[in-house]
Structure formats: structure tokens, C-alpha cells
């Protein structure tokens, strides 16, 4: 054999969505996985490495699910390009493993016929074989193997059954140097798709005997979960529990992380001599890392629910139930998941928009996702509410502060709906993309795969935090530290810094909405991440450690700001694109500065108009 152990043979997993590709990928590669992005697109590239029993090293690629190589979304395009060897810097796979749900072969047979046209050596993994056996489904493996002209292995990915056989088959294909035939794949026409269906139907008839005990579980569960009324009620109850969990369970963890970083900052502060280096490490780096890490618990709890529901097969049902409700505003049912994630943080939300296969629907979702009240707004809202809204009861079980908080969330949701309605009218001239979606059978999620996936989310978040958010935090620190105050300065140091200069220079722009220059100064570091504005206000108003001391800062603000100004600041934060990381992700996802600019412009405009209206209304009503 001439191929060296240094160049692993490349194996690609291809199949319909929900057939267990990822489960199979995990079973094959265990923890030897690497996640990155494909060049130019933000589709995740999951690669794992194994050594076969024969000592050969293989690189396994988990590709996004698809029904056809005729790609309709960026995810599917990656699958097509990977299979065809069109990806920049990537050779075509040496072996394609077609992954099929043994209980649902019809559509995958058509995909397999397309893969055969591509001509790479192929193995068919008939996954979910446990379910097939339980149902009494009979498949003539010998016959099917002959018919398709490729070896077949039955697998149960979640219990790691058939994995050794699968690697052995792949190994064999690589070892015998199975030759690819010429690639004759082209985008199938409608007539060709019909022909492939007939072919698939013929194959099914010849080699597969329908199950003796077909699955009735999914039908029974759907009778409840897809019930027009009960289904929606359950969906909303589920959302309620999720939000409770995100906010209630995460709080102690977040407090713990906060405390740990405060302690670390203080410890480093004591260990280092006074000066710029100390400031940089404890205020720039440690505080920066801390302010990002503090969101990890919320993001993980949210993703825990999302992964669980996705693996169970519920997410497609949620999209079904929400489609018409969101459709009224011009959003796709599938936008539900990204928008839901955006309540934790717009970044995973915008990335989750990839599940939407239509470009226009995806763009609309990305553009409105940052209007959802993300958790970084909570510290700002909490501060301003505690300073300006009296803590009184206004009705049975209704607290005024709580009511205002609710109003802020509602304002975010309603404005997102309104904006998507306008986007559809303005940019897409009212065109509505088709909505077609498979409703997978329900499956009990496997604990291992849920936790593996969760770990992956944590890794991705931390990675991004390190690479995008941290440098931004450092940049903001530099802006608000240099130049230092002159000797004998009486005002807080930030007043003399670049941030201070910028703030004072552009304050006239903000005067009509009632902002003083200190607020404008705080908005600049607040651009790194929304909640940083709290710390920045603490700095400009010289309240030490504002985040831990919200009461003192609130009291100070109540002294210096009018009620109208406070409310105007709240309105600003509903809409303003005060998050550089979000804009960065939008640029990457849309691959367009123009769309990023559109988002920045519309959010800033809305923020200004809202603050202007709120400020002048409040002044007119005597709140000036």
C-alpha cells in the first residue's frame, strides 16, 4: 500500500436528517473529534479520527443532513460540495458512508441513487436497526446489497452496535483500492426525480417487507403534541419551564462565576505592582473574560433544552405549531428555534438560523434575532428599573418593576415581529418561500449524545469568546484608559480618555433623546457587550465595583438623571445594536457587510426614535 499513515483515508457520512449520522459519528470516533468551520461559511465542520483494526487511520466527516445533493441551504451546499470534492482545500472523500434510517428508506434510496452517480466507493449503514427489528421489518440485505452494488452494514449507533463491522468494511474498500467511477452527477430534473422515486419504489417492493408492528407511538404522541389547542398550550408551558430554568437555575452559577472572577481580579491586583500592567490584567483581561464567561450557564441550560427537544424530535413539531403564528409577521416556522435561542444570546440564535433552508427567511430571522431580549440586557434593565421604577404592588400579584421588565421583553418580541413584516414587504416584495419539513419519528434521546453535544456548544462558545469578544473587550479597555488623566485631575480617569473624548464630542447627537455625556461615554464600552455599560456607568459615576453594588449605582443615577432620561435609556437598550460580537457574527453568517450595515442602521434608527419618543412623552407628562 502506498498511502501513508500520515494521510488518513477520508470518509464522509451522508444521509437524510435525523437518521443518526451524528450518533454514528460519535460512536465511531469517540472523543477524537475536531470542530471547526468550513472556509468562508459558518457551517460547522465536524471531523473525527480513528484507527481501524487493520491499523489504517481514517478521518471521518459528519456532514449536514440532506434529501438531495441539489442543495437548498448553506448546510446542504456543504454536503454537496464535500461529496463532490468542490470545497476549497479539501479532497473528495475516499469512501462515502450513506447513513439510512432502516425504518424510513424511501427518500434515502433516492439520495443513494444520486450518490451512486457521483461514483465514489460507498458503504450503506442501515442505522436504527434496533427499531427496525422491534417493528418486525424484514430487509433482504443480500438482495439489496446486490441491487445497490455496495456493501451494507446494519448499525445501532446509540448502542455502538455494528461499528466494528462498519469500519472493517470501510477499511476493506480503501485497502482494495475500490475505484471510483466517473462522476456523472448533475442536478436532477423533475422527470429524473420521478424516475428515481419509481426506482426506489421498485427496490423497496423487492427487498423490504413492511413492518409487522408499525410504529404507533409517534402517532399517539402527535395526537397530543400536534393538537391545535392542546399542542400550543403544551408548547407554551414548555417555554415557560425553559425560561424559568434559564433564569432561576443559572443565577447561582452566574453569581459563582462573578465572585470567582472578582476574587481572581483582586488576587492578581494584590500580586502585581500598581500600574498599567496591573490595570490591563485585572480590569481588561480578567474582567473581560469574566463578563463573557458569566453567560455560559444560561447558554448551556438553554442548549440543554434545545438539544433534548431536537433529539426527541419535538423541534419540528414546534416549528409546525408556530408556523402560522410567526407567518403572520413574515417569519418561517423554523425561525422559532433561532429566535428562542436569542433570548439567551443573539449569537447562538443567529447561528441556529442555518436550519432555515430558504435564504430570504434566514436573512429575515438573522436581522430580527438581536431584538429578542438577550441575557446581556438584563443587568442594564435591572439597574435602571431599580433606580427609577418604584417597587410597588399595582394589582394582585403584580409588581410595577416586574411589569416594566415584562413590558421590555414584550417590546422586543413585538418589534421583532413588526420588523420582519416590514423586511418581507420591503426586501422580498411579499414573496413567501415554500415550507416543507419532515416530522421525524419520536426517539428517546441518548444521555451520552446530549451531553456530548452540550460539551461541544460550550467549547464553541468559549472559543468564540476567546477569539472575538475578548479582543474587543481589550480594545474597549484601551479606549477608556488612554490617555491617562493629567496630574491633579479631579474627574474620573475615563473622562480624559479617548472614550471620554468621543463621548463628549458626540453627546450633542444624543441630547435630543435626553442623554448626558456620561451616558454616551458608557455606551462606548457598552458596545463590546451590553452589560458592560453597567460597569462603565459605575466608572463614570465613580461607584466602585458597580456590578456587585447595583444599589449604590442606582441611587447615584436617580440623583443625576431625570425619570425621562432613565426611561429613554431603557428604550435605547431595547433596540440599539450595542453588541459588536453580534455584528461580527452577522457579517460571517450573511457573508455581507451590506446586510450587517442594514442591521446596524435599522436598529440604531429604531433605538433613536424610541428613545426620542419616550423621552419627550415622559417630559410632557412631567417626568423631566
Amino acid at each position: 500500500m502506498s498511502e501513508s499513515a500520515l494521510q488518513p483515508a477520508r470518509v464522509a457520512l451522508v444521509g437524510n436528517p435525523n437518521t443518526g449520522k451524528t450518533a454514528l459519528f460519535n460512536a465511531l470516533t469517540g472523543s477524537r473529534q475536531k470542530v471547526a468551520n468550513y472556509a468562508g461559511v459558518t457551517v460547522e465542520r465536524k471531523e473525527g479520527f480513528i484507527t481501524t483494526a487493520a491499523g489504517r487511520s481514517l478521518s471521518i466527516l459528519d456532514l449536514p443532513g440532506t434529501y438531495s445533493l441539489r442543495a437548498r441551504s448553506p448546510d446542504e451546499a456543504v454536503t454537496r460540495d464535500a461529496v463532490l470534492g468542490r470545497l476549497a482545500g479539501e479532497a473528495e472523500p475516499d469512501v462515502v458512508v450513506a447513513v439510512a434510517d432502516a425504518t424510513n428508506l424511501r427518500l434515502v434510496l433516492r439520495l443513494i441513487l444520486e450518490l451512486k452517480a457521483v461514483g465514489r466507493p460507498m458503504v450503506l449503514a442501515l442505522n436504527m436497526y434496533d427499531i427496525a427489528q422491534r417493528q418486525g421489518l424484514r430487509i433482504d440485505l443480500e438482495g439489496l446489497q446486490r441491487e445497490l452494488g455496495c456493501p451494507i452494514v446494519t448499525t445501532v449507533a446509540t448502542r455502538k452496535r455494528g461499528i466494528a463491522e462498519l469500519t472493517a468494511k470501510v477499511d476493506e474498500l480503501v485497502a482494495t483500492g475500490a475505484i471510483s467511477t466517473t462522476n456523472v452527477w448533475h442536478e436532477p430534473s423533475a422527470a429524473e426525480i420521478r424516475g428515481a422515486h419509481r426506482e426506489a419504489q421498485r427496490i423497496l417492493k423487492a427487498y423490504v417487507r413492511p413492518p409487522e408492528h408499525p410504529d404507533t407511538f409517534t402517532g399517539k404522541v402527535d395526537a397530543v403534541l400536534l393538537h391545535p389547542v392542546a399542542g400550543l398550550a403544551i408548547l407554551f408551558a414548555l417555554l415557560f419551564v425553559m425560561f424559568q430554568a434559564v433564569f432561576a437555575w443559572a443565577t447561582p452559577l452566574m453569581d459563582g462565576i462573578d465572585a470567582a472572577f472578582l476574587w481572581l481580579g483582586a488576587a492578581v491586583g494584590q500580586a502585581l505592582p500598581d500600574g498599567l500592567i496591573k490595570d490591563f490584567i485585572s480590569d481588561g483581561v480578567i474582567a473581560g473574560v469574566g463578563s463573557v464567561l458569566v453567560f455560559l450557564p444560561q447558554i448551556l441550560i438553554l442548549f440543554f433544552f434545545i438539544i433534548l427537544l431536537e433529539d426527541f424530535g419535538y423541534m419540528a413539531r414546534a416549528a409546525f405549531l408556530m408556523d402560522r403564528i410567526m407567518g403572520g409577521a413574515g417569519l418561517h416556522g423554523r425561525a422559532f428555534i433561532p429566535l428562542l435561542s436569542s433570548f439567551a444570546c443573539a449569537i447562538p440564535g443567529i447561528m441556529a438560523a442555518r436550519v432555515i433552508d430558504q435564504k430570504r427567511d434566514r436573512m429575515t430571522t438573522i436581522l430580527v434575532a438581536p431584538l429578542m431580549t438577550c441575557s446581556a440586557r438584563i443587568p442594564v434593565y435591572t439597574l435602571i428599573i431599580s433606580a427609577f421604577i418604584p417597587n410597588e404592588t399595582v394589582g394582585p400579584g403584580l409588581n410595577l418593576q416586574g411589569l416594566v421588565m415584562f413590558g421590555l421583553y414584550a417590546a422586543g418580541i413585538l418589534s421583532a415581529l413588526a420588523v420582519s413584516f416590514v423586511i418581507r414587504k420591503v426586501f422580498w416584495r411579499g414573496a413567501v418561500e415554500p415550507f416543507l419539513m419532515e416530522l421525524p419519528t419520536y426517539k428517546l434521546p441518548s444521555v451520552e449524545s446530549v451531553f456530548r453535544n452540550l460539551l461541544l456548544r460550550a467549547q464553541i462558545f468559549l472559543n468564540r469568546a476567546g477569539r472575538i469578544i475578548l479582543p474587543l473587550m481589550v480594545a474597549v479597555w484601551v479606549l477608556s484608559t488612554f490617555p491617562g488623566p493629567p496630574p491633579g485631575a479631579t474627574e474620573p480617569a475615563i473622562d480624559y480618555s479617548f472614550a471620554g473624548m468621543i463621548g463628549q464630542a458626540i453627546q450633542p447627537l444624543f441630547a435630543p433623546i435626553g442623554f448626558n455625556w456620561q451616558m454616551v461615554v458608557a455606551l462606548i464600552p457598552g458596545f463590546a457587550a451590553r452589560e458592560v455599560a453597567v460597569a462603565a456607568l459605575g466608572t463614570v459615576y465613580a461607584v466602585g465595583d458597580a456590578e456587585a453594588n447595583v444599589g449604590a449605582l442606582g441611587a447615584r443615577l436617580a440623583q443625576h438623571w431625570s425619570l425621562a432620561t432613565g426611561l429613554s435609556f431603557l428604550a435605547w437598550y431595547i433596540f440599539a445594536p450595542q453588541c459588536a460580537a453580534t455584528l461580527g457574527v452577522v457579517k460571517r453568517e450573511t457573508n455581507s457587510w451590506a446586510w450587517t450595515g442594514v442591521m446596524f442602521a435599522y436598529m440604531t434608527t429604531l433605538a433613536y426614535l424610541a428613545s426620542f419618543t419616550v423621552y419627550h412623552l415622559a417630559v410632557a407628562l412631567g417626568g423631566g
Partner: protein
Amino acid sequence: MFRSMHEMLAGQAVDAELTQLSQARPGDRGVIVDVRADHAGGHGVDVHELERRLLEFGFVEGAAFEIIHQGLIGADPIAVRLDDMRVALRRRDAEDVWVRLDPK
């Protein structure tokens, strides 16, 4: 009336029993007879693209179906059992699928 429009566009005589999948109610079963996207415009994709997408999801002549669920507002979207799988789609996209309903 949709029958005559279909006849006109498809340029062929159509069985009097045919109806659009978009008109079906939960519990209705039958067989798909004709998938022909000929409603120009409004779909955001051209008609041939819609036809191919429908075909790719298994809406193909000869497939047996049953409407199993529908949404709350406007009875939309619908969930269809197609042979051994389930697919959700909006009624407007189901207009291009012509079916023969089983007698009840």
C-alpha cells in the same frame, strides 16, 4: 372551479374526482395523482423549483397519503402521512398536488 383552471393549465382532461391536497381535511386519505406546479408567482421560488421540492419530499404520483393534523389558525399548515413518513407543509404549497380521495 379550480378543476377547470387546472384543466386549462395542464391542457388535459381531468378526472372529476380530483381535488387539491390543499383542500383536504384531517382524516382524509387518498392517492396522489398529479404533481404539477403551475401556479405562477407568489411562492418565492419558480414553479419548477417548487415541483422538485415537493417531489423530493415524496409528494410523487402514486404515493398514498393521509392528512393527520392541521394548525390552529386558518387550519394551516397541514401534517401529511406519506407512505411511511410524515411531512408538514403549508396549504398554499399543497395547491400543486392533485389527489384522489378515498371514499369515506
